[in-house]
């Protein structure tokens, strides 16, 4: 809303309370962006509802006045999904942060949309249960944001992504009606699977207000090891060997040479700077199975020419080894003022090829790019270390990105494995999914939200 009409503000205040409608620049400027580099927009009015009923009432009012709504969780998104658009109302859901209940008999957790991902896992943990999706932002991301982006994490290969844990949703529709989809039944084939339409919908189809999640028993044991290689291909081949040996580890994460150097500069863990790849491997489950699998993984890594494999003896050492991977992003983010984190994904057997392609492109365009990511599921994070004020360098970043996307699609991959399309990747969506699929997506959006009030301009124009 450009210059908020006092009468409208009064109605918004009547719905959510005086303190939860923000209009001054000091209050709204901080809602002008999410976690995406170099994107921002004007957050005219920010509304923080305290219940599903309030969300519904705000949506009805916006609908009546034809005001677009940009839904926001914690604003950690990496594709610009919650960046405000001109004349919009920002609906920020962080007050709806309760983990409502844990049902140990049915293995479910019910939570409000603004509940923090880590708080959901902590609540499950109290009952010996486990919520596996662990995006790097889990200490602050909201579950609503996770569902809206279908977020992944480090455990994708074995445990899947957010979608695999959503059993039910409460959603406020574009006209303000409150609808419920799914339930606590493991089996349910009654009609279309409507909840699946909302997972990954990036705030364009409805506002998720409550979620019912599946949880699983917490694994009793875990083993961690870190292997270094002279060639990225050998690391990738180790992963294929492990999977061919019928082992599904919970974590298979890699760092490339550039990232290893940055991590070592920053954390001084004692990593070999001259190796081309580090592979962090973790297996979890029943203690005896874990011991057995760990031994096999060690042997397979050695057989593929791993220069060195460190196996953690205890939890403390496991944490130390894992910190090499965990600090990758922090180490890279310190190098230059602007950090652009991409998440192209290719079929697993194409990963090594993709990593070396990224390194070549970076060299060609004289850019600093470190790549790390999830080797088990082919999801890489080429991270551009740059400066948004340097227009010449930014132009080269865009050229490089274009080449990386083209290669990704040629290898049968996707422009985004977990961060979503938002604003940042919508130019490439049609190229990836094809015109019919792209048209169908837009038709669904149009049918559902004919006045284009929910997160307009995200995913497609």
């Amino acid at each position: 809303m450009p210059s908020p009409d006092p009468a409208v503000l009064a109605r918004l205040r009547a719905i959510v309370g005086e303190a939860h409608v923000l209009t001054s620049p000091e209050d709204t400027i901080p809602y002008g962006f999410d976690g995406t580099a170099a994107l921002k927009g004007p957050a005219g009015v920010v509304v923080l509802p305290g219940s599903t009923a309030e969300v519904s009432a705000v949506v009805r009012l916006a609908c009546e006045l034809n005001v677009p709504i940009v839904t926001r969780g914690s604003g950690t998104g990496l594709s610009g999904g919650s960046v405000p658009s001109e004349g919009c109302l920002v609906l920020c859901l962080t007050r709806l942060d309760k983990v409502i209940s844990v049902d140990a008999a049915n293995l479910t957790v019910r939570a409000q949309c603004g509940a923090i991902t880590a708080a959901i896992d902590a609540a499950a943990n109290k009952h010996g249960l486990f919520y596996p999706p662990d995006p790097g932002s889990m200490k602050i991301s909201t579950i609503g944001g996770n569902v809206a982006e279908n977020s992944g994490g480090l455990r994708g290969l074995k445990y899947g992504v957010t979608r695999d844990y959503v059993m039910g949703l409460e959603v406020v529709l574009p006209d303000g009606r409150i609808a419920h989809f799914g339930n606590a039944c493991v089996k349910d084939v009654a009609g279309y699977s409507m909840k699946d339409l909302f997972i990954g919908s990036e705030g364009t189809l409805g506002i998720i207000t409550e979620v019912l999640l599946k949880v699983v028993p917490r694994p009793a044991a875990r083993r961690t090891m870190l292997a270094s290689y002279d060639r990225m291909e050998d690391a990738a081949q180790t992963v294929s060997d492990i999977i061919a040996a019928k082992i599904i580890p919970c974590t298979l994460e890699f760092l490339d040479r550039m990232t290893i150097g940055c991590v070592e500069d920053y954390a001084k863990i004692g990593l070999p700077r001259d190796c081309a790849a580090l592979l962090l491997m973790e297996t979890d489950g029943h203690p005896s199975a874990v011991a057995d699998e760990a031994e096999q993984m060690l042997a397979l890594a050695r057989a593929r020419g791993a220069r060195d494999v460190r196996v953690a003896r205890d939890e403390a050492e496991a944490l130390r080894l894992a910190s090499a991977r965990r600090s990758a992003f922090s180490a890279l983010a310190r190098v230059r003022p602007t950090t652009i984190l991409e998440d192209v994904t290719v079929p697993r057997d194409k990963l090594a090829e993709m990593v070396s392609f990224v390194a070549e492109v970076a060299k060609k365009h004289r850019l600093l790019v470190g790549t790390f990511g999830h080797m088990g599921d082919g999801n890489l994070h080429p991270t551009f270390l740059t400066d948004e004020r340097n227009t010449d360098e930014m132009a080269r970043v865009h050229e490089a990105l274009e080449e990386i996307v083209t290669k990704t699609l040629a290898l049968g991959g996707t422009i985004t494995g977990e961060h979503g399309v938002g604003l940042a990747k919508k130019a490439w969506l049609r190229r990836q999914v094809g015109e019919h699929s792209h048209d169908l997506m837009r038709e669904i959006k149009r049918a559902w939200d004919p006045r284009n009030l929910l997160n307009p301009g995200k995913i497609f124009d």
Partner: protein
Amino acid sequence: MKPSLQLLDYSILQQCMHCGMCLPACPTYDATKKERHSPRGRISLMRAVADDELKISPAFADEMSYCLGCLACQTACPAGVDYSNLLETARAEVQSAGLNQTFTSRFWRAVTIRGLFMRPRLLRFAGRLLWLYQRLGLQTAFRMIGLTKLLPKDLRRLEPQCPTIATKFSPQLIRPVESPAKKQHRVALLTGCVQDLVFADINRDTADVLLANGCEVHTPPVQPCCGSLHAHNGEADAAKTLAKRMIDLFPPSQFDAIITNAGGCGNHLRHYGSLLAEDPVYAPLAKLWDAKLRDIHEWMMEHGCRAPQAGLGDLTVTYHDSCHLTHGQKVTQQPRDLLKLIPGLRLVELPEANWCCGSAGIYNITQPEQSEQLLVRKIGHVLGTGATVLATANPGCHLQIARGLRQAGSAVTLLQPVTLLARAYRKEKMTESMTA
């Protein structure tokens, strides 16, 4: 030249990639769940000022004052954003724009920052008066006849817990130079302002710990304030003057280490290099100064602190991290390791040990409500541990938490790690002389 956000190296602002990883660590965001009260939000406001999209307004000034300056965001930040530098610049700009909050906070600034903390002798004199007032029983008399009710509300809240001023200040307890039996290092000991007024005995304990570990301790009787209060509250020029006086008094080339035992001062003392970077004469000295500066716990563990041979009996102790020690100076493990050296002492972890207690410089005076909420939260955790002693290493935290414990009617004793260690060394000496 006045410090300003527009003149600040823009890459310091740009370093924030607005990822939000600092939000869960920030006490003011935790309390309100509003972006404006988060590190990311505050940085975005500073950037808007730098970009000329926002004027320095009363709301901006309030926001900078509502920040605790606890620097928990700096520990949480993956991108290494120098929040402390940003906050100081923003506060200085608020200061020079003349937008300075309430009457009470103006009053306190005038009395403390511009007055007392610029003049060490005057500060001690004021301390002495306060001591007299307390000793002569005027305090009790005033309270009984209700005179204290005439004080503004914020002050009234703090007055009953106003720190009891020490009977003796540091120079009466520590000689200018004290030497150990076998000298291995030559160190300077900074006595601090609040530490010196209220906790001079802790300075004595620090000297004893150093002596027991082969350090010759140099403690000039009159020392300037380090300038941290000034820098944190937007008085950059005063901070620079004080830094230079400090360097003059302790030429860094003459010592193996310059020791501080107050977390808040230490964090500021380590950054004289950047504070005086533009000064042709002092810049190189300040750099050397930074390299020599050590927190007492850090210095002790760096040189393999000797474990005392005697303990203090069975003691369950928990430890509260002072913000500026843990987030500012990154000294987190050393105080714990130091405590564990004492025979018979059992250390239990305090939940949320590194969450601000609400003291935060003069925050408990300028933002009483938020400060009180943080204090209550801290006391709850302390009581939950079942420890009989709470150790912490910063005079501000010490005063604040001691006040909270008294308010809660708790019997938990508050001591600093060096005090416990010094007592163990004294016990050791006694045992030795008895057996001899």
